């Protein structure tokens, strides 16, 4: 599988192994194709998780990670793609139905938008929430202060 | 059982019936109307009891007040009350209404003044203990059971009505 990807996509796919766990760093432009192939041809029919990591100092601030599992091969693989702030990703809901809530959570926590998602809105946080808390530069106090300013009429709750 | 304070109870029940009847047509809220109707029907069954017709009274309670009115309420509850409250309640056909009321009133007066010969004198009562049995005998009894056939016809009619209702309510069978 690795060899095939390497052959077809060249430098766009970078398969790695750490502590016995396989993952591949994939270029943003190849993501739709790679996920489709993983699902249909490589039998990774179960999308375990979709998540992201924020690296504020990098130029491409986010790593979005798909954790996939294949029942047929009993094998896990992680697909990782670095994207910049504001960049969108294609939604994988058509590929794995389970991506629906997982992508909503990524959007909720990181503000990464997924194109073609049927109902992309906040899931864990209330609709009126400002900011995306799992970003490293998210200040925990601002929301609190805003709330006390509006509801209690005091400057700060701290 | 010796009757107790008969006139008092008669007027009480009659008044309840009339007030209930008036409320039925004047209330805008359909649920209130239905409840007034139930009150009127219960008062009516009380009058049946006073007329020594306990079986009819029981049937009145179990069928009208307990059965039919529940279905009425069932339907009314599902209607939007807000909308029905705004609808016009009377359709202002005063003339026809007055003529009809006058005709009915005239009939009542005529019956009251001249109808004494139409009805048997005094009360026609069965002893209370056998009243229900008498009704049964009259309907199905071997000698007097002349209503057996009409009773069966009526039940057949109801069966047709039930099937019709099912056909109309069910989109596909």
């Amino acid at each position: 599988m690795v060899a095939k990807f390497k052959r077809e996509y060249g430098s766009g796919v970078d398969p790695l192994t750490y502590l016995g766990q396989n993952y591949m760093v994939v270029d943003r432009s190849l993501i739709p194709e790679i996920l489709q192939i993983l699902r249909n041809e490589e039998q990774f029919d179960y999308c375990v998780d979709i998540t992201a990591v924020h690296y504020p100092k990098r130029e491409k601030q986010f790593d979005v990670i798909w954790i996939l599992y294949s029942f047929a091969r009993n094998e896990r693989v992680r697909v990782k793609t670095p994207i910049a702030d504001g960049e969108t990703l294609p939604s994988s809901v058509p590929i794995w139905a389970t991506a629906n809530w997982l992508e909503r959570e990524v959007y909720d926590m990181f503000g990464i938008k997924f194109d073609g998602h049927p109902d992309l809105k906040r899931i864990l946080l209330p609709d009126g929430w400002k900011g995306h808390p799992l970003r490293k530069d998210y200040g925990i106090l601002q929301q609190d202060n805003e709330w006390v300013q509006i509801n209690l009429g005091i400057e700060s709750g701290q | 059982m010796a009757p107790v304070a008969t006139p008092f109870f008669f007027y009480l029940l009659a008044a309840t019936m009339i007030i209930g009847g008036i409320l039925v047509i004047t209330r805008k809220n359909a649920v209130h109307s239905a409840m007034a109707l139930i009150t009127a029907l219960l008062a009516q069954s009380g009058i049946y009891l006073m007329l020594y017709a306990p079986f009819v009274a029981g049937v009145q309670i179990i069928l009208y007040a307990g059965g039919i009115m529940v279905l009425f309420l069932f339907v009314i509850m599902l209607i939007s009350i807000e909308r029905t409250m705004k609808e016009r309640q009377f359709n202002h056909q005063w003339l026809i209404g007055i003529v009809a009321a006058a005709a009915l009133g005239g009939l009542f007066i005529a019956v009251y003044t001249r109808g004494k010969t139409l009805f048997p004198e005094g009360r026609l009562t069965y002893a209370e203990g056998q009243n229900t049995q008498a009704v049964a005998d009259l309907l199905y009894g071997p000698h007097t059971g002349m209503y057996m056939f009409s009773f069966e016809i009526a039940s057949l009619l109801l069966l047709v009505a039930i099937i019709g209702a099912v056909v109309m309510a069910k989109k596909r069978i």
Partner: protein
Amino acid sequence: MGWLVQYVQSYLDPRVTVSPGAAGNVFWALVYILLVFAGVSLGVICMNWLERKILAHMQVRLGPMRVGPHGLLQPIADAVKLLIKEDIIPAEADAVVFWVAPFIVVLAAFTVFVVVPFGPAHAITDMNIGILFMLGVSSLSVLGIVTAGWASNSHYPLIGALRSSAQMVSYEVAMGLAVISAILMTSLNGFGLYGVGGPDTPGIGTLSMIGIVRAQEAQHVWFLFKFFPLGLIAFAIFAIAMVAETNRAPFDLPEAESELTAGFHTEYSGFRWSLFFLAEYSAMIAVSSIAVTLWVGGWLRPFPNALGGATWDLAFSFVPGLAFLFLAGMTFYNVRRMPKHPFFKIQTMGLAGFGAVLGLIGLILFVPPVRDRVGDIFWFVAKVAAFMYLYIWYRGTFPRYRFDQLMKVGWKVLLPIGLGVLILTAGAGIVGLEMAQHVTH
């Protein structure tokens, strides 16, 4: 004043064996109304406590233990709590209907006791249409439930009310069929398990509650065993339908807690809610009384045939007193088991007092005039209590039916069986009559 004394005297005459209503005895009728009202309310209170305790012991818990010895005063504490609670009427509710609904339910639940025969002379009145009256009036309570759900102006109560009305109307049909087959038995004397009697037994049927029990007495058979197994099946249909009719587990959908929070009385609180509670339990007692009257021989003592005769009559007349003495004995046994700590002194004394009261009642029940008068009440109440226990047992055992399954059971199972039993009962009765006539000719 003379008439009053006369009334009292006329009733105290042991030869009077009819109910005060049937005798036209207004004074005693009023006394009976009060007694029955108080008795039923007391029954509801006892039932409340017993249900909690029995259910708790079924579920490996203790139930109420704090208020009074073994939680005996818990129902009273609860009643006081409910009475002093704030009475909330939701802002968008239809206030008048909301206010009236609980009273309709309570009224319907208590009115039926007018014809319940606790004994041949221990009924408020004996109506010619007794059983019809009971079914009719108890069906009125659904009006209260429906209006309560509607007036709350909220989704859950409305759905609860709709479920409830559909359920009660459906199960009334099956119930009615079962009742009719029992009524048929009053006039039919055919063969049967204990079918003695014969053609000279009066063959006139009756709707009167007292008449039904008298028929069982005359035919020497409880209708439960008549035309075996037809009576049993009819009774089973009634026993199932009556649980559905009173909205109890496993048919408690109108108030299914896990689905509709509390069903039609979700928005009710305090006193108004307690009226629904009162009505529910007294309706349970009422339908159980119907079942007892129709199938289990009403006030008649058990084993009328196997253990017949005056000696056994005498022996059975001691049972009420013995039962109370047994309860008193149990209470004293528990008094001994109470912790000896001074904390429990008042509790222990209370329990001992309770036991003393029970024992006293037991002793009074041995006095011959009392014994003769209240034996019938005791048997009736004991039979009703057995049904009450069944209710609690169901609740501890069964999951809840789903609504469509409930309807399926009502219409597709109970109704056809009920019709079949009705037809077979009529057929069996006619065949029995023919045979009986054949024998005499």
